């Protein structure tokens, strides 16, 4: 569990982070979202003490982060950044092995861990282990960056706009992969982004920041339905609200028995995509199929519209 207590950072007269407090539970994905200059990156960097707070405390599992030397603290926290920061003169394998080597793991354990992570990120070890970062595509570099952050199996992973440099198609895949991997490993993730869509998609809870202040810290549904300030409302966007709300639920959760015509949609599809499918195929009902393709029920356009309105 991470406890951030009244964390503040000032540079001279400018207050970049103003008295922010929040708590992150184990295994959660918390996304800190805001525009440039909102202080979100500084907040993140105060957790692993790349920036030293002016006042306030950070406690991880009850221990104040100031009680250990900064470099030791950082070896136990994963850190993945937008530019991935891979070391150009070291191979993929050597990059990933960085923190385990700093922790003086035995060689065999390091090699095994490197291969395990490469497989987890769908990079065939024998092919990729000895390549240099410059020989990888942007998407592959980003994956290696995250793999490197997870190498020593940290309980906490800090990510600073990790998908920012990727093109939209690869970005969506990378986000899916992250959610999958987080489910497998149970890592607590604190992710910073300026993209509200990404925040809603990934976050169990979202912390909205503006001008150094924490405006709201709640679940995506809460933030969409009851934005704490007009700025939060603007970030959600009046034009996007209903669709963002729809994206939070899957078809399988609301399907009911019945027959509908036409091509079925998968139970895992979001309500937003189902709504789009209704509009596009000019249908008012959709059959719902499970993973094997068997039809298990249906949803109606009315069901979808009901759930797109402002919650009570």
């Amino acid at each position, binding site marked *: 569990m991470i406890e951030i207590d009244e964390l503040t950072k000032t540079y001279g007269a400018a207050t970049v982070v103003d008295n922010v407090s929040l708590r992150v539970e184990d295994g959660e994905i918390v996304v800190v979202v805001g525009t440039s200059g909102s202080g979100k990156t500084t907040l993140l960097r105060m957790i692993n003490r*790349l920036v030293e707070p002016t006042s306030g405390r950070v406690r991880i599992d009850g221990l104040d982060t100031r009680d250990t030397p900064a470099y030791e603290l950082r070896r136990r926290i994963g850190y993945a950044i937008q530019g991935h920061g891979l*070391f*150009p003169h070291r191979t993929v394998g050597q990059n990933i092995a960085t923190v385990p080597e*700093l922790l003086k793991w035995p060689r065999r354990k390091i090699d095994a861990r490197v291969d395990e992570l490469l497989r987890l990120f769908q990079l065939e070890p024998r092919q990729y282990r000895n390549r240099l970062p410059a020989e990888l595509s942007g998407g592959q570099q980003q994956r290696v960056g995250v793999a490197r952050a997870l190498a020593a199996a940290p309980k906490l992973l800090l990510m600073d706009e990790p998908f920012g440099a990727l093109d939209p198609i690869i970005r969506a895949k990378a986000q899916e992969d992250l959610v999958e991997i987080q489910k497998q490993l149970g890592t607590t993730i604190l992710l910073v982004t300026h993209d509200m869509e990404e925040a809603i998609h990934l976050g169990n809870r979202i912390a909205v920041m503006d001008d150094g202040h924490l405006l709201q810290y709640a679940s995506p549904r809460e933030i969409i339905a009851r934005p704490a300030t007009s700025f939060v409302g603007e970030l959600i966007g009046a034009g996007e609200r209903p669709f963002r709300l729809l994206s939070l639920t899957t078809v399988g959760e609301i399907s009911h028995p019945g027959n509908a015509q036409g091509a079925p949609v998968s139970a895992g599809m979001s309500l937003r995509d189902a709504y789009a499918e209704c509009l596009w195929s000019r249908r008012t009902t959709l059959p719902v199929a499970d993973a094997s393709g068997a039809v298990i029920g249906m949803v109606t356009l009315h069901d979808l519209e009901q759930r797109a309105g402002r919650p009570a």
Partner: protein
Amino acid sequence: MSDAATVLPSRARPVAIDRLGVLIALIIAVAWIFLPFATDKANRIVQGQGRIAFDSLPPWQAALLAAIVALSLAVAFFRTPTLWRLLVSVAALAILLILMGQSAFFLTPPGNKLVRISPGAGFWVLLFAYLLFAADALTRLKLPPWLRIGALALAAIALALLLVSGDLNGLSIMKEYFVRADAFWREALTHMILAFGSLVAAIVVGVPLGILAYRRLRLRAIVLNVLNAVQTIPSIALFGLLIAPLAWVATHIPGAAAIGISGIGFTPAIVALFLYSLLPVVANTVVGLLGVPPDANDAARGMGMTDRQRLMGIELPLAFPVILTGIRIVLVQNIGLATVAALIGGGGFGVFVFQGIGQTALDLVLLGAVPTVLLAFAAAIILDAFVELTSIRQREEA
């Protein structure tokens, strides 16, 4: 008929001409036709008389030389395969050098020990032209670094064989050498110590200084400005400035005079060379460290490397090619600059240069100058190859 006309490429010429080759061919032609091949002096200090190739060599040797010159003109002028260009230029260099040696024997009357034969202006210009020709061919071949060093080694071995064979012994420059062979090797060693010793000292002091200057902006400004100022002091003036402090050290610090420190001679020479070497090393260290990708540095800190681990594992390795370039600049600079040390009794090849000037024996000047130039050339080639070798791993980055 109109179809055939449209099929011809627009840049087709009946005969293709190589642009650089035209210049080289022109230089060769001028040297061969207008400039003397050898200079014939009655003794070592009088003005010599120029002689063309056909007067300096037995007829068949002169014909051989003429033949290779003609062939090289053709191969240079027209666009020919790079391998031909390389082979012809190397053959021309070999023949030129060997026959120069032969002409010394030919022009020296038997039993005459006073006559001095040395290469004429024509020889030097031809040598320059063929070296340019060969270097251009090598560059076009785009040899990888190891092969470049290999080619250099081959050239060095060939030159050594030529010297050992005695073919060049008739030339005036070799006669100067034989008179003072021991001194030559002694000064050669001194020259090496001056050049390399000052380089090593500059690395030991300059790289840490560069690291400090990289970390602290104010220190950086001060250090670079001071070193810039030092760089502008003319070498002879710097020697003069060093006399007083070094003499003070020699008198007042116990043991200093015993190990050879004094106001003139070797000490101020190596101290001056060291001071001149600092700027390239420090500046390149700073620039190299500044060139490390900021993301790599941030990631390194964020993952828990200590500052020292980051410096040794990330920053210095990535800055290394730039630092090595600075070292290369210093080494080539120092090999040349060490010649000036002779002015204050510091030794080195400059001894022969200045002696030769004083005695108006130009071949003695050459005895000092030629080894210096060859060494600087070799150092540049070797270090450039190393810079490229260390950069290959990172060349694709950015």
